């Protein structure tokens, strides 16, 4: 489904190496200390960070050299997931086609998608007029329409409070399940990982460990993870 083969990313002194496989529909929490390379890993898979060696496959298609939009991957960043000058309908509509001339049927899909994330009737609002949680919902509505087999989350909900973050993670999980998408999400909170993830992918000092089921990892954490979790 998502396969990373002998990936190598070099950034100055820092080297990231990864080789792993995630099955379709699995939800993977990416966890590890700051500076370990979590964002670099997602950036490389998403096509934003140049890769020195290795291949990336999405649904058995080699996407290593594809542009970010041609990889079958949707990605949410820490911030800047919406264009501030566009309405929510336009922002979400960009997920359907990047030229923004939508048919009536497509507009109906945009509205339905907004309604799915609890933003019914918010079509004409702009990101500046709504709360941070609502902005996250709108970004998710776009991901829903993009309908990509892989979803990468680079801590898009980090700025939200704990309750709101849990709510958004649940919503993301539901949305991803419906679309049968494979999810890689960076998180700093082990509780979040327990709550929504199937597998845990531990990144430590540029080394990416093979993902394993969360309960298994938590029950018997490897040395690096134990140090990170602090128990």
């Amino acid at each position, binding site marked *: 489904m998502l396969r990373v083969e002998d990936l190598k990313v070099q950034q100055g002194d820092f080297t990231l190496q990864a080789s792993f496989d995630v099955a379709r529909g699995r939800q993977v929490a990416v966890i590890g200390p700051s500076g370990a390379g979590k964002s670099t890993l997602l950036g490389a898979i*998403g*096509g*934003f*960070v*140049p*890769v020195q060696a290795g291949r990336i496959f999405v649904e058995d298609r080699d996407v290593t*050299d594809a*542009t*970010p*939009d*041609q990889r079958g991957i*949707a*990605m949410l*960043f820490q911030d*800047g*997931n*919406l*264009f*501030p*000058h*566009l309405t929510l309908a*336009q922002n979400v509509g*960009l*997920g359907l086609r*990047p*030229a*923004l001339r939508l048919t009536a049927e497509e507009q109906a899909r945009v509205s339905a998608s907004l309604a799915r994330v609890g933003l019914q009737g918010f079509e004409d609002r*702009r*990101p*500046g*007029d709504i709360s941070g949680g609502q902005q996250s919902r709108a970004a998710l509505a776009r991901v829903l329409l993009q309908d990509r087999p892989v979803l990468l989350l680079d801590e898009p909900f980090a700025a939200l409070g704990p309750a709101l973050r849990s709510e958004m993670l649940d919503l993301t999980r539901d949305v991803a399940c419906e679309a049968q998408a494979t999810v890689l999400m960076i998180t700093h909170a082990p509780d979040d990982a327990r709550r929504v993830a199937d597998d845990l992918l531990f990144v430590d000092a540029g080394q990416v460990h093979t993902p394993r089921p969360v309960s298994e990892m938590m029950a018997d954490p490897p040395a690096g993870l134990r140090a990170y979790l602090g128990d």
Partner: protein
Amino acid sequence: MARGAQPISRWPGIVAAVLIVAAVLAAFVAIFWRAEAGTGLRAAEWQAIRFTLWQAFFSALISVVLAVPVARALARRRLPGHTLLITLLGAPFILPVIVAVMGLLTIFGRNGWLNAVLGALGLPEVSIYGAHGVVLAHVFFNMPLATRLILQGWQAVPAERFRLVGQLGLPPRVVFRTVEWPILRQVVPGAFALIFVLCLTSFAVALTLGGGPRATTIELAIYQAFRFDFDLNRAAVLSLLQLCVAGSAALVALWVLPPLAVQGGQDRPLQRWDGKGALIRSADMLWIGAGAMFLLSPLLSVLLSGLIGLGQLPLSVWAAAWTSLWIAVLSTFMLLILALPLTAWLALSKRGGGEGITMLGLAASPLMIGTGWFILIYPFADPQALALPITAIVNALMALPFAVRILLPPLRQAVTDHGRLSAALGLRGLAMWRIVLVPRIRRPLGFAAGLTAALSVGDLGVIALFADPDVATLPLQMYRLMGSYRTDAAAGAALVLLALALAVFWLCDAWGRRDVAG
């Protein structure tokens, strides 16, 4: 970023840059080929060089020297109409040169207001024609510009520093040395250099107020060689001179030029605790009052005499106004298709050296480019038939350095802020411009387009070189009316021209300001 992840391509910008260089280079080669070897510089040419440098130096010097106290007074006083005055300081930049000359003539001319006052007091009359008139007009145009630039520098001083000054009760001399002098040292050389370069290629002012052996700029000499003697060889030699003089100055200026902000004078209230003395306060008032008088009275006189002349406008004025409007539309369009890709290319590249390309238009003077293109077209077609398109192209080239300077910072910001998301969504090419970039730079874009349109409407340059009696832009038509002593009609035309320039600027600027959330 991975290969192809950049949301906008560099190629259109590189093509635009090549086109610009080619347009200037073609003119240059044509002139070089035409200027026969062994044609030495005669006394007249030396005199033109000397006068060009002399008037540019004094115009810049006087503008800056007068601007410093006015800017200082504006920075520490709040008078009624403060905001309006600062907005008006931007007016000379879009004011058609010939309109300003008309206003200056009404005040300082032979039958002007000043001479009326002097005559009543039994003092000898002054003449505006000649070298000092050229400098006076340049100061009128550039003193407000310098004031705004210096005011910007002043307003960049952290308020805490003035609070500290007030708390310590420092005397004015110490305030000057510790707070004001460092600012001036930063801003003044840039303002001086900018004005110096702008005045080097001055044509319309020299044409109307200068002339004669003692007040002819190189630019005016090109025109005279071309228009009066049809001496292409001499025009070519002069063009080369102009390129050497203005080109080297522009290159030097590029490194000291201050950034041009969209809102020239931000109107941030600045609380000051120093300069409370009655003497300083009245001196400030005097400077603001004198500055405002100098700026406003010619404008006011254009308004008054224009209203009188409005009834006597010949039909030719309206036809010329229509022509000018078309040239402005064409120039603005040309500017946009050159400036947007070019700026995008500059925004993507790490080093800013490419901006030098835009200065080519400024260094190679309008009349030099016009002369070159005339030489190129002459063997094949009637250059007069192409007068209007060439004028539009040259106008766009002249506005280019300003437009790029205005657009580059916001465009760079837009690419930084939204490039990643755009790449993730597959936005690129025209869709990227339409959906992301243009909305993000809408305000500065409207401002730059407005500047170009206004400059183009008011331009009296290449068109004077090419035009036959049947074709005229409004500034040229107005110049002809002035030349045939139809003063009232010329005054009416000045008002129409002023209104047209302000209208096109306002239209573009208002488009840019139309509220875009975020």
